[in-house]
């Protein structure tokens, strides 16, 4: 063998070794986003009211609006978002690997996810609970009547675990039928394979509305068997980015509390005498600087999506097709439990 070949091989090995020794740089998400000019947001493959694309490819939903608000507060333009639809299985690895910047996919905050997946939870966007849906003709009125019955559930979610806990605690011996894909679960329930379908109550409403031939034929049982606080997740280790996402959501809640809407935000920004409003909108104080953002970070967000109440109404509220009541998701001052820390 010629020495030429030996030398080239040795050179390649050295280069490889040098590249391997390169320290993997700690990703500064905000710098990457500003350089890229786009926020990459992981969303659901299609859950009406939370994140679903219509036939023209336009995304809409609460989770989508959170992404848009974050993009508006970070980059000034709510349209600078790339949506990556993810299955329940792929969502965490996509976030862990850096493929997406934030996971806005109606994901429940739990101990395991906070502690052992290398992810960090931001703010709760939707307080939910897990429920059951049964066909009306089964005449079941309570979840406790599901003794020994089959329940369709999607794999890889907290739903599976909660179902088991509920079954064990109430001695129901429920037989789960577990599918990988959401449309397989829906197909099995609507074709009659299982007696009941379980997921978050908001998901039940969404599925019933979108996929049932006649939504009135299906009943959502009254019991909520678990707490499901849903919200966006980011990677652990980048507190700056986590703060941006968290405070954008708190800002939307604060906006609703202080009566700032999509319609009046420009007017209030120019003319409001209220120091609280001024601080939120950046007309009197620059809170954005502390986060590494523009002065009008919150004003941009509110202008793009409206405040929390408007987002809720538009996507899942009583006027939308899901018709979910505000319930727990109302402001603390109005009987719900959404309590945002003050922006100051």
């Amino acid at each position, binding site marked *: 063998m010629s020495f030429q070949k030996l030398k080239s091989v040795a050179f390649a090995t050295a280069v490889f070794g040098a590249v391997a020794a*390169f320290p*993997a*740089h*700690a*990703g500064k998400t905000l710098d*990457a986003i500003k350089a890229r000019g786009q926020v990459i947001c992981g969303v659901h*493959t*299609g859950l009406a009211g939370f994140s679903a694309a219509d*036939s*023209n*490819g336009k995304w809409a939903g609460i989770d989508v609006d959170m992404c848009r608000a974050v993009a508006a507060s970070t980059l000034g333009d709510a349209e600078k978002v*790339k949506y*990556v*639809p*993810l*299955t329940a299985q*792929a969502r965490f*690895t*996509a976030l*862990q*690997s*850096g*493929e997406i910047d934030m996971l806005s996919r109606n994901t429940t905050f739990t101990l395991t996810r906070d502690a052992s997946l290398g992810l960090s939870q931001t703010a709760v966007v939707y307080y939910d609970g897990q429920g059951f849906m049964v066909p009306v003709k089964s005449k079941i009125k309570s979840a406790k009547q599901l003794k020994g019955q089959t329940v369709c559930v999607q794999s890889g979610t907290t739903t599976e675990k909660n179902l088991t806990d509920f079954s064990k605690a109430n001695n129901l011996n429920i037989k789960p039928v577990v599918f*990988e*894909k959401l*449309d*397989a679960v*829906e*197909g099995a329930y*609507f074709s009659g394979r299982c007696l009941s379908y379980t997921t978050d109550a908001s998901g039940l409403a969404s599925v019933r509305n*979108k*996929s*049932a*031939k006649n939504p009135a034929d299906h009943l959502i049982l009254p019991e909520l068997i678990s707490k499901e606080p849903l919200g966006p997740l980011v990677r652990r280790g980048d507190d700056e980015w986590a703060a941006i996402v968290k405070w954008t959501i708190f800002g939307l809640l604060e906006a609703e509390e202080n009566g700032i809407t999509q319609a009046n935000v420009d007017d209030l920004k120019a003319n409001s005498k209220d120091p609280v409003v001024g601080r939120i909108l950046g007309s009197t104080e620059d809170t954005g600087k502390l986060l590494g953002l523009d002065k009008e970070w919150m004003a941009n967000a509110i202008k793009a999506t409206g405040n929390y109440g408007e987002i809720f109404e538009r996507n899942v509220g009583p006027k939308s097709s899901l018709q979910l009541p505000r319930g727990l998701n109302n402001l603390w001052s109005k009987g719900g439990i959404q309590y945002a820390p003050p922006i100051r």
Partner: protein
Amino acid sequence: MTSHTFIAPRPAPAAASGWLGWCKSNLFYDWKTSLGTVLIGLIVLYVLPRLFNWGVTDAVLSGGYEACHAAQGACWAVVREKFRFILFGRYPHEEHWRALICTVLLLGLIVVSCTRAFWRTWLAGLWIGVLLLYFALMRGGFAGLRYVETDLWSGLPLTILLASLSMVMAFPIAVLIALGRRSGMPAIRSLCTVYVELIRGVPLISVLFMASFMFPLLMPQGFNIDVLIRVLAGITLFAAAYMAEVIRGGLQAIPKGQIEAAATLGLSYWQTQRKIVLPQALAMVVPGLMNNFISTFKDTSLVAIVSLYELTGAMGMAMNSDANWRAFRVEGYLFIALIYFVFCYSMSRYSQWIESQVNKSRQR
């Protein structure tokens, strides 16, 4: 001398030739065969009219889902309604013409590669050119074409791309591994054997899971690989292992005398392989390689499990997202089963033709 009285000539046995004779010997030879024919005939006569009624006579060809629900027969209207979604998946609606052109190009290239008249050296260049054109046209982003990111590529174009590109890339890898398995150097032989046995022992699903879950962890941070590239890499590695076994079978069939004669002529190892062994071996294993291509083509249906919506996944998406058409999933499934059947059957007929061509050189 007594005169012979001839008996009257009997007519030739009528039922030994012609289609009557064929029926007699093939359908009614003895009582067991006749019984079988009668039974099968009865079953066929029972099933076929009903199938025909369901599929053709009572079928609904157009009109909305109300017409389908009201009718008894098959609802082919669902195919008419959804065929664009099924064939092109999530690719943007207005840009379907680009996906169509790309599919036709790639199919044309495959057909051209199969015809003997085009077996020249510039075919390789043509392949590279068409593949580049495919990627450029599907991706867009220049000359006014809208940019379409790779996770929107779906449906039939994606199926054909995955199958053909992975086979093309797997082929050189497979040749090297097959040669490595037969090499005299124990380390290389064991490395290649371990690779092949490892990949052949696990299902494609686990390789795809590995590609989609583990590749991101294996790369340094910030180094993002497209999901399409990851899946392609997984399918290529998988196909390469199977192809390596087929090629190895061909290499084993070359008489040792060929290699010895090449050594006598002073050819080096790589020259021997390139000029003497591989041309003979590859010509012998073309049917096996075609079988591999057919399996790879069918295996692309698995990528639906890692969220790339090729033909099967696109159909699932199309049918499941619409409650009105959900009851007619059977018709949708039959539609894509037909598409797969057409492709795979033509490939298997082609492989039989190739086999007969190769065997011509052996007929004496």
